[in-house]
């Protein structure tokens, strides 16, 4: 026997159904709001990552590598820059600056020792002077020449009485290494050939003298 639903029960059932509908709608809307918000955040995070990846500044890394201090480089301050005739008593071996001859040494590769006073003038013009002990094996000398060849502001010469087999000097800076294959040779050149230490940027490294010490 089917019971006839009373109007009251019917209203209650209807109300429950509406409430449930409302709750379902709320849940749906809440999921929508949370989902959309999360989607936007994720999309933006992905965009930021993509942009960082695509525009990552390799140049900054390159420049940092170029400008990074080379291990073991010694620096010297307050070097005189006057022109003088005759011999100068230099504090460093080889000299890294100080009074010097009016004529600068022409850049290039020499197989005989140079006159300090001319070489120091070339350092003032931005040259790096690569000196090696006369007893350095020929293949290491070749390596030094190869390291110097990408530049036209380098001097390569033997030097008597060096404190180590190979010494690289620029105005006010010096690096002593035991071997021509030392991995600091190239960075030293890259940083100091016509580098920021140069007292006279733009000055020439030709048109001076190519004479060697007698």
């Amino acid at each position, binding site marked *: 026997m089917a019971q006839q639903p009373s109007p009251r029960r019917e209203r209650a059932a209807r109300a429950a159904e509406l409430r449930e509908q*409302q709750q379902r*709608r*709320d849940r*749906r*809307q*809440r999921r929508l*709001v*949370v989902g959309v*918000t*999360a989607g*936007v*955040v994720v999309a*933006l*995070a992905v*965009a*930021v990552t993509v*942009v*960082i990846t695509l*525009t990552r500044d*390799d*140049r900054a890394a*390159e*420049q940092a*590598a*170029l400008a990074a201090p080379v291990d073991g480089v010694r620096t010297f301050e307050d070097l005189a820059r006057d022109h003088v005739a005759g011999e100068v008593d230099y504090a460093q071996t080889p000299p890294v600056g100080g009074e010097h001859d009016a004529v600068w040494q022409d850049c*290039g590769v020499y197989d005989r020792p140079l006159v300090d006073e001319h070489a120091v003038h070339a350092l003032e013009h*931005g040259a790096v002077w690569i000196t090696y002990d006369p007893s350095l094996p020929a293949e290491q000398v070749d390596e030094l020449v*190869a390291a110097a*060849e*990408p*530049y*036209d*502001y380098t001097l390569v010469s033997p030097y008597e009485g060096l404190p180590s087999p190979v010494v690289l000097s620029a105005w006010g800076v010096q690096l002593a290494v035991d071997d021509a294959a030392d991995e600091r040779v*190239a960075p030293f*050149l*890259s*940083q*100091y*050939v*016509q*580098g*920021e230490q140069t007292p006279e*940027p*733009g000055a*020439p490294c*030709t*048109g001076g003298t190519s004479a060697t010490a007698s």
Partner: protein
Amino acid sequence: MHRRHERDGVLSVLADRTTRVVLVAGGALSAGLLLVLGVLLGLHWGPARDVPAAGSVDAGFALDMQAHHRQAVEMSSLVLDRTDDEAVRTLARDIQLTQQQQAGQMYGWLEQWGLGQGRTEPVMGWMVGADVAGGVAGHHTAEVPADGLGSVAAMPGMASDAQMAALAAADGEGAERLYLQLMATHHVAGVEMAQVAAAEASDPQVRHLAGAMARGQRSELTVLRDLLAERGGPVEGV
């Protein structure tokens, strides 16, 4: 009716605390990410970021052409001390002063770009694969060593140490002829380098100066060859 229900739904969920927290946090996070995105894009495409990098055509050209120019200046200085011939002296002075000044411009670019004069890329590396077919006669291809940074002295058109020594040892018409023939070879390669940079550099200043160099050196080539022919042509065996 349906739409009103939906709006009511959204409004009603805003009354829910968790949803509000999610919305506020998500909004703040999105705003922050948008800011980061804007800054990144601004840094990348903004005017301040727009300078050539090490390894670019611009930087390679500025380093290599500078060294190329310096040898032209040296050759011109040598011949100026070795002849009284006014036609050759005028041309030599023109080349000497022009190329010295242009080398200074290239030096200045590299400093401004924060690169300095140091090398991380092989000499002439920027010319590899470049189309130099439009160059003048005497076509050169850039050769880059498999390892190491190469040699400035081995760049196309550069006079060898022996040739420079021969010029330094000569005087009078001998020096003039040597200068003219060495400078002609030097200019042929110079024009090709300048043409590649004029076409492929990214910086408008670089393209502009490189284009001017190509035109200037090409017209000087005619003068060099004419003066050389008037003096009996190239010196044999140099």
